[in-house]
């Protein structure tokens, strides 16, 4: 199943490759060009495949995340892994909050970017620097962002960070080839956030936070193929959501996040993993 995921990600990578490193003049246009390349340039087989419903942009994986609050023990390994792979310094693209429940108990709430389907940040961006890729992930083009921070004001989850001064790009970071899918090195005066490690899923890997989580509390999956994995086991995504009464944050706002939460407490972690 993981192989399946990887294959999907790799095939998607073909389309994504066309976009990397290029300033995104008209992202939508390029998606269509990429689609055209697959259907027209890619031989008659590709054309047939399109009809067979295998490889096409409409078929691109729609990434989603499911965070199991019953397993999360608030160790923040996800945050550290994210900071390490993206050289974000102080910024926490996935932030772990401590919450109090109805009974006075405590639990932990990791918050990545929600990758909303009706994304307030995307709507308000005056220059279209924030956009959605073919996998439903919200990306930021840091070569276009003007730093107005309207997206930060609009985000109901506080998921965005700003480079208030010149970001400290370590030597390794400056070697990186910038793309919105891997926004390193960082740019002063621009807004940054979690993008589901778009660079990783292109290579068929899980997001850094999911890999790093020692409790295997972060599931990553594809809504189209209805599968999800936490790196240890692979399950039917829809089964996971209904079996564990998944919920989304601030559902009433109508943002339609692509991040679900499975209710529970960190202290249940052992019972869950031993199952």
């Amino acid at each position, binding site marked *: 199943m993981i192989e399946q995921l990887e294959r999907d990600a790799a095939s998607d990578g073909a389309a994504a490759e066309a976009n990397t490193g290029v300033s995104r003049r008209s992202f939508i246009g390029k998606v269509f060009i990429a689609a055209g390349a697959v259907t027209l340039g890619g031989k008659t087989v590709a054309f047939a495949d399109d009809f067979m419903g295998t490889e096409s942009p409409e078929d691109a994986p729609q990434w989603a995340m499911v965070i199991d609050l019953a397993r999360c023990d608030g160790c923040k390994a996800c945050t550290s892994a994210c900071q390490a792979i993206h050289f974000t310094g102080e910024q926490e693209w996935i932030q772990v909050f401590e919450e109090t429940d109805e009974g006075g108990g405590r639990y932990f709430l990791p918050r990545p970017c929600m990758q909303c389907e009706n994304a307030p940040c995307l709507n308000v961006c005056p220059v279209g620097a924030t956009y959605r890729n073919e996998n439903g992930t919200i990306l930021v083009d840091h070569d276009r962002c003007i*730093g107005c921070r309207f997206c930060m004001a*609009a985000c109901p989850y506080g998921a965005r960070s700003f480079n208030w001064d010149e970001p400290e790009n370590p030597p390794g970071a400056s070697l990186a080839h910038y793309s919105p899918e891997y926004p390193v090195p960082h740019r002063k005066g621009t807004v940054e956030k979690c993008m589901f490690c778009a660079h990783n899923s292109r290579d068929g890997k899980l997001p850094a936070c999911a890999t790093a989580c020692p409790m295997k509390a972060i599931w990553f999956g594809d809504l189209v193929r209805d599968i999800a994995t936490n790196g240890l086991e692979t399950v039917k995504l829809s089964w996971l959501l209904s079996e564990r009464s998944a919920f989304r944050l601030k559902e009433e706002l109508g943002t339609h996040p692509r991040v679900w939460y499975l209710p529970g407490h960190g202290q249940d972690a052992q019972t869950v993993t031993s199952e």
Partner: protein
Amino acid sequence: MRPPALDGSQTGLRERAAYPLRRGAWGVRGRLLVAGLVGVVAWGMFAWIHQLRGGLAVTGMRDRVSWGIYIVNFVFFVGMSYGGALVSGVLRLTGTEWRRPITRLAETMAVVALVVGASMIVVDLGRPDRFFNVLRYPHLRSPIVWDVLSISIYLVGTLIYLYLPLVPDVADLRDSPEVGRRRRRLYGWMSLSWAGLPAQRASLDRAMRIMAVVIVPLAISVHTVVAWIFGMTLREGWNSTIFGPYFVIGAVFSGIAGIILVVAAFRRAFRLQDLITERHFRLLGSLLLVLGLLYSYFSLADYLTIGYKLRVGDDALLTALLSGRYAVAFWGFAIAGTIVPILLLCFRRTRTIPGIVVASLLVTIGMWLKRFVIVIPSLALPVMPYEWGVYRPTWVEWSITAGAVAAFVLLFVLFARFFPVISVWEIEEGRDRERQALGTEQERGTVAGRRVLESSDAMGSEK
């Protein structure tokens, strides 16, 4: 050619209007004022350069409170501008006679405040070097794009609106013997070979009427769009359906207060006491009172409807405003910025020029506080389980704010150095009309004629 039939008093008016434009007319005090203003503006520029070097890290803004007093200043100055345009537009459209000596100042304020306000947006950007991305890659769904478009159109509108009634006055200056050669060229170029011909007069009248009609909906729409920067988000306190009209009313409220302050300043500095009388202040004061009551009504409608339901978030926000960390700013606005000015304007004993000016000053400061109360607490309010955001403006932000205020005054002073701040030809037109009306009434010997006489006397004399 000059407009026909001048008597002594009218020539006097022209001379007085042209006096501040003369070399050396401003004296030492004027030079000191300009030097002081230039100093403060320069200090603000220095602070901005410091900010460009160090990034927005030199401000008090951080990820939690990501907008600060730059946005407050933006809404404040743009609101002043709309107030100026709306008041002048409405007074012109309704043919209100007493508008004549104050429209020029209102129209100037519309331009000057807009320029200062719009520059605040550039100052607030993390990447001002990329400002033109808004034009290169406009994302039409964004209220900021609506704003940039409407403010640009509105800026052109206010410039035309200021310029049109200026044409006969600069033509007059062009023909004046006391004007130097370089200025004569400027005025000549600006006067579009105006000679006061009936055809020119007719087309100017028409153009001005069209602009007065155009500027009002333009101003309303633009301030509505400013409100929608906030109203289109899901944040507590901003997530409001009445924000558009609420901001428009607030803009006119603070705009009238701004006009009164500007009019009072120039009346004193240029000794216009006989042209701008207590009656003007009382009438403007009445407008201010009406808008103050309207604004209070809108505030009540906004806060009561969220306070009654007390949804999560709204609850915390209201507590912070009414009795928490923002109580000083909130009550400062509510009491000193609204209730006290309304009371000052209500009672005959305080409805004097000093009373009205004090009320306007309070409203101006109060409305700045109100914009602070709108922008900051809604951002500081935690949207996730974390602590309240903290925002303390730094010296850089205060310096740039001071620079903006000084730039506002300086632009006014510069305008007054080059152009008459009262619309001479319009005042003359008004006097001509009055005289004609008076003449016909006197011929008939009616009581009404005497009444007109008395009222024109009252207008001419101070207090």
